[in-house]
């Protein structure tokens, strides 16, 4: 939902970043306000996932130029876990498995880390159990998932739902969903999208990174950005995604090369 007076949550200016000495992001600009849903689309290798990891602070990515402000703070100053507790959430494309650590413990420790960062007391296991049972409904997950090791032996769809469960629990100001739709069958896609829609409010924002239009049938974006070669080369409304689906990317890339706006 676009409201030009709402708070700017994320502001990215001329961002450049390297991985292993190769420049992947080459001057990226983006502004996200509260209440908005943005989709970032683009071909493989255009830098979409890199952008999400840079926002979250992955140590392999080195920012060489530009600025990122998150809710008025200089995000690049913050350690990854401080970025998380200040409200940045990344739903991983490939969620990690953590053998021996129960999902319930993991979620509780994460939740309490967020509370601690806000200066609130940690909550005990009983209060946490009540809270998490409620959140399970958002992604229609069975409580038995809580007692399994984090993501261990989960199917692709279960892993993605587990990511959205974490988002529901941590209530981030900015959720970045990195190809959350990949590997999901249509029912799982609907569940995940339904969860994201439930969690989306006028106070927070969502950035969806995706290859395909189909996710956007369920989570309707306010803006669609096309990324190529480490920059956002064009921005449009939800119809742009449909056009990309039917016409492919070449015409946008061509327009960018010739300097004509799409």
């Amino acid at each position, binding site marked *: 939902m676009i409201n030009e007076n709402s708070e700017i949550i994320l502001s990215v200016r001329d961002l450049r970043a390297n991985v292993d000495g190769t420049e992947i992001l080459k001057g990226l600009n983006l502004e996200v306000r509260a209440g908005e849903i943005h989709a970032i689309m683009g071909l493989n290798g255009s830098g979409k996932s890199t952008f999400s990891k840079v926002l*979250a*602070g*992955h*140590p*392999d990515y080195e920012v060489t130029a530009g600025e990122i402000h998150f809710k008025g703070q200089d995000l690049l100053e913050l*350690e*990854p*876990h401080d970025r*998380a*507790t200040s409200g940045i*959430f*990344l739903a*991983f494309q490939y*969620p*990690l498995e*953590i*053998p*021996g*650590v*129960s999902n319930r*413990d*993991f979620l509780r*420790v*994460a939740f309490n*880390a*967020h509370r601690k*960062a806000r200066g609130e007391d940690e909550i005990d296991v009983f209060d946490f159990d009540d809270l998490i049972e409620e959140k399970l409904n958002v992604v229609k997950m069975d409580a038995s998932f809580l007692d399994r*090791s984090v993501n261990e032996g989960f199917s692709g769809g279960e892993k993605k739902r587990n990511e959205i469960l*974490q988002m529901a629990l*941590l209530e981030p100001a900015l959720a970045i969903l990195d190809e959350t739709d990949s590997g999901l069958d249509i029912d799982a896609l609907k569940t995940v999208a339904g969860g994201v829609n439930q969690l989306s409010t006028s106070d927070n924002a969502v950035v969806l990174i995706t290859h395909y239009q189909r996710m956007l049938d369920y989570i309707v974006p306010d803006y669609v950005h096309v990324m190529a070669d480490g920059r956002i080369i064009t921005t449009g409304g939800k119809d742009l995604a449909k056009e990309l689906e039917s016409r492919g990317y070449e015409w946008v890339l061509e327009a960018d090369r010739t300097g004509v706006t799409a």
Partner: protein
Amino acid sequence: MSASVQSLVSQPYKYGFTTNIEVDTIPRGLSEDVVRMISAKKNEPEFMLEFRLRAYRKWLTMAEPAWPNVKYPPIDYQNIVYYSAPKTQAKKLGSLDEVDPTMLETFEKLGIPLSEQKRLANVAVDAIFDSVSIATTFKEKLAESGVIFCSISEALQEHPDLVEKYLGTVVPIGDNYFAALNSAVFSDGSFVYIPKDTQCPMDLSTYFRINNGESGQFERTLIVAESGSSVTYLEGCTAPMYDSNQLHAAIVELVAMDNASINYSTVQNWFAGDENGKGGIYNFVTKRGLCAGKNSKISWTQVETGSAITWKYPSCVLVGDNSVGEFYSVALTNNHQQADTGTKMVHVGKNTRSTIISKGISAAKSKNSYRGLVKMGPKAEGARNYSQCDSMLIGDTSSANTFPYIQVQNSTAQVEHEASTSKIGEDQLFYFAQRGISPEDAVSMIISGFCRDVFNKLPMEFAAEADKLLALKLENTVG
């Protein structure tokens, strides 16, 4: 991997202090005279001196084992002091209150209060400082149930028949090089005797402290559980930080009769050497339990975090039909530590069962090897073993090895072996961080998760301590 993951594993050793105390030592070196001198100092019965001399002569004919996957410069056995005792301890003490206050302070500092007021409520402690036992708590209370818990020196005076009957029956004097050495020169250790049909009313524990920089420590522990009895035994160890290496060669023998059970847990935190590999304890230990009776059970649980070199294979010989052997182990190595540890499960009787759960964690430039033997003898009808050996690597300069040996001589026996290797990677830590969890908390959660199956087997007091110990040891490996 970044230096950051590394730094999380390195935590200053907080038990590295030295106690200044006058000691009664003998000159360096080992000879028949030294063996006689040790025996004389302890006023031992004749059979003990004979035992020691036989062991010493055997030792002279043996060679240090070369097969372990560890490297260290040759040990000069003539440059070691084989007996060192605090002077104040020379005469026998009437009560704990007569113990030198410096000693009490030392143990208090280590978290092992011995004084009457502060002692641990439900654990009886035998405190061993260098070569001698300083104090044993709750002795009288235990005696009410007929349980004997005292230092082995005292047992040699008070219960020589029991010691003579069992000493060396599980680990013979010539079992291996270090066992022979221990049998010749051992100075003290704990002795436990649980009479028939008695459940030991409290946990027993021995706390070993090496203080003297030149002395070796050679303890000998003997636990006998008569038919239908049971006991839980805990063992802890620390040492000061010296830049030379000290030798620790201990023997533990357990005997379980019909329907008896012994749970033996160790948290080993000897000084491991500094980050450059200087100093640290050479820990060459022989631990073996004999399930002599039917339905008997011996369970070893160990958390090995210290020592520059660990060479240790707590084992079970399952002679009694339906007897059970268990080995649960966490071995953590960091910096330049080297561990070659595991177990031997020797199935002799029918329907004997054994379980091996081994978790190795290696960080920095350390080397961590699991070595285990499962042997099914010709008469071990229906015997079963399950082994699981998991290794976790932190960083990319450490190594983990698994050497399983399986020998089956009975066609009805079953042996299962599972192994895995995993790595705490930056991506895993990033996942935790992205959920707001700091790298220190992440590593400690991953490690406790990895070790859970073993920690669950530790007595409660130890489980929390072990968890904390690993977290401390791993502090600053990540950042």
